[in-house]
């Protein structure tokens, strides 16, 4: 622990909440956001000799703080204390807010971007600046650095094993997946901050790398506005927040830098550009969420869905459905607060649902948005407070995808031995046999607030591409089309969703682009 604690205590780490006066900072490169995009970029540029300053709104929490309790993690590690949602409240948004970003709370699932998706960007979204083979060495490097390896079938907990076995029983493709962990104790608490540093998030890898290479980090500093003059950004201005990240301290900060990299993620990056008046191009448009529905199944045997790696198997059998919308199937861990909010009903009915937990497995269908004209994604705009809100009305085609996916989830769960399958509708559909599936699901309502819809993957909103009308940054180096010293490097640059859990896609793309940036004169 010495070295990680040393990093946290380093003079290069500036606690914005403790500043007694306004801060005026200077750097070669200012990286705004420290998640999958920002941390990789900061480390590579610092190692190349640039004077890098990272700016992060969230707190700098470590394994010393991660107590496996949602009472701590929701308010401290998630955007808007876990209450972030789409404008009509139909989709709950899980997104990290901390040093290390969402990588601190994700469930470690690691997929490279599918090759056909990268090809589609070239063909349909004018992404000409790189091709799939250009990304490969960067994924290789990041996989080594983050110990990303495929797990064995024997390591699956029963929650995941039921998914895997159910898919196989149906004759569908399913496989174990890759995770960014080393010496994982299988505690299952990835989503609440890894208590033992087994998860190789940005917090324990690229951020220490950046600091070791001379970078500085300001945390509890909220980036408010980029100030542009002519074709360059001159300055970032921001607000310092209290130790809890709840309210401004009354102090502010400015960063003067030669280059600025925006890495706030798919909602906060477009919001920063919009707050800065940099709304040229499709800023905030085509924001994708991989919207998710779930299905809980009760089995005779004990599942114990809160022990073991949260996600270790997946099925992409239905990912490519032509004119129909594709989706992929994964398991979700059971955390009491997350489950309490998602489980249907109230009072005694809800308690009954919760009490079955030890015999319950929950599987999800994750819809792949952005590949059909009818699924153009959502739009990020600013609220009065300056915070982002995403308007993502769920289109009819997506509701019908959910209906189709609900049937597939029920099929695999019954095939895997479930006694009863419950959709998370309020009130739930209770499916006990194959004959129930079409009858109940066809009659069920698929509309807002009849069933919970979640997103844990946010992509797009600052699309890359070489057609200025349909993109915000160019694809060769993710530089803004007009502003010569402004870059966006994070999940917001994707022109579609990814069709896989995003973290490794972002690591690879950021590593490639930061490597290109590192060739620039200092």
């Amino acid at each position, binding site marked *: 622990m010495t070295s990680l604690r040393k990093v946290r205590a380093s003079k290069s780490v500036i606690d914005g909440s403790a500043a007694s006066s306004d801060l005026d900072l200077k750097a070669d490169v200012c990286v705004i956001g420290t998640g999958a995009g920002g941390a990789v970029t900061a480390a590579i540029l610092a190692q190349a000799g640039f004077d890098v300053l990272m700016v992060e709104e969230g707190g700098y929490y470590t394994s010393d703080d991660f107590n496996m309790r*949602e009472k701590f993690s929701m308010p401290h590690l998630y955007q808007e204390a876990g209450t972030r949602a789409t404008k009509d409240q139909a989709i709950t948004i899980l997104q990290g807010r901390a040093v290390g970003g969402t990588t601190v709370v994700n469930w470690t699932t690691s997929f490279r971007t599918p090759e056909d998706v990268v090809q589609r960007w070239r063909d349909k979204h004018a992404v000409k600046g790189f091709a799939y083979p250009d990304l490969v060495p960067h994924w290789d490097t990041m996989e080594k*650095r983050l110990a990303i390896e495929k797990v064995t079938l024997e390591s699956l907990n029963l929650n995941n094993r039921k998914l895997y076995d159910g898919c196989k029983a149906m004759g569908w493709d399913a496989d174990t997946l890759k995770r960014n962990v080393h010496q994982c*104790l299988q505690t299952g608490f990835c989503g609440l901050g890894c208590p033992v540093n087994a998860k*190789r998030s940005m917090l324990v890898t690229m951020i*220490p790398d950046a600091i070791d290479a001379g970078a500085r980090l300001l945390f509890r500093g909220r980036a408010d506005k980029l100030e542009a003059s002519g074709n360059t950004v001159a300055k970032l201005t921001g607000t310092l927040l209290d130790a809890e990240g709840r309210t401004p301290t009354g102090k502010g900060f400015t960063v003067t830098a030669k280059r600025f990299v925006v890495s706030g993620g798919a909602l906060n990056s477009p919001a920063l550009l919009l707050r800065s008046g940099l709304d040229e191009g499709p800023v905030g448009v085509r924001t994708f969420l991989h919207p998710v529905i779930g299905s809980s199944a009760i089995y005779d045997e004990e599942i114990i869905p809160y022990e073991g790696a949260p996600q270790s198997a997946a099925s992409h059998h239905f990912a490519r459905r032509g004119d129909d919308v594709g989706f992929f199937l994964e398991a979700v861990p059971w955390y*009491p607060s997350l489950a309490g909010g998602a489980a249907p009903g109230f*009072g005694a009915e809800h308690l009954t649902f919760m009490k079955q937990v030890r015999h319950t497995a929950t599987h999800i269908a994750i819809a792949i948005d952005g590949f059909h004209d009818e699924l153009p994604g959502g739009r990020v705009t600013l609220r009065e407070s300056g915070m982002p809100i995403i308007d993502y009305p769920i289109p009819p085609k997506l509701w019908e995808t959910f209906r189709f996916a609900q049937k597939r989830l029920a099929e695999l769960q019954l095939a895997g031995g479930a006694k009863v399958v419950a959709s998370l509708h309020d009130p739930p559909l209770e499916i006990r046999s194959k004959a129930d599936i079409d009858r109940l699901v066809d009659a069920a309502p698929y509309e807002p*607030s009849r069933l*919970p819809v979640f997103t844990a993957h946010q992509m797009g909103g600052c699309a890359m591409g070489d057609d200025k009308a349909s993109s915000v940054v160019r694809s060769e180096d993710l530089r803004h089309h007009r502003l010569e010293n402004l870059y966006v490097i994070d999940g917001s640059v994707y022109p579609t969703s990814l069709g896989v859990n995003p973290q490794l896609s972002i690591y690879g793309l950021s590593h490639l682009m930061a490597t290109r940036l590192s060739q620039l004169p200092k």
Partner: protein
Amino acid sequence: MDRRTFIKRGLVGGAILLLGGGAGLALAPTKEQATPAGPLLALEPRGFQVLVAVAKRVLPAGADAASVAQQVDSLLSRAAPESQKDFGRLLMLFENALPGLLFDGHVLPFTRLSPESQDAVLLRWRDSKLTLRRTGYQALRRICLAVFYADEASWPALGYHPPSDLNKMAYDDSKLGTPDALPAAAPEAKDGGP
């Protein structure tokens, strides 16, 4: 006003417009449920009382509804200012007797109804054809339950006993995969942990 325009007006603003009024049109005052244990950070005192009444029905019997409402208030204080305001309006709308009279045929505010009638109101909001009512019901229900189950006191009933203090076993392999990698040190729990 067609349904589309109605929905576009947003969660609560549109509903107040349609239902003909805000908090001022209640026919009877809100019934006090509990005294807040500390200062309220996000909610108005009246909204807090409504939330306690909702929590009493939503949570398992015997739960400390006032404490949950207080924790909801604390969580909300970290949400966007707009969300805090919307939630406060939702509580007033839920409490308000006039929409209750128009839609559900009851003349008392939610806090003055019998427990059975309160459950019936919750179910009518759950099953409403109006998206705004369903959304309101889900917002109230979910935040109470999410906060309740975040608290360890609720876990024994579920047979859920997570480990604690594992962070004392944290190790540092942060250099793994770099030229500075330390020789791999096994974690203390060599048998695979808990």
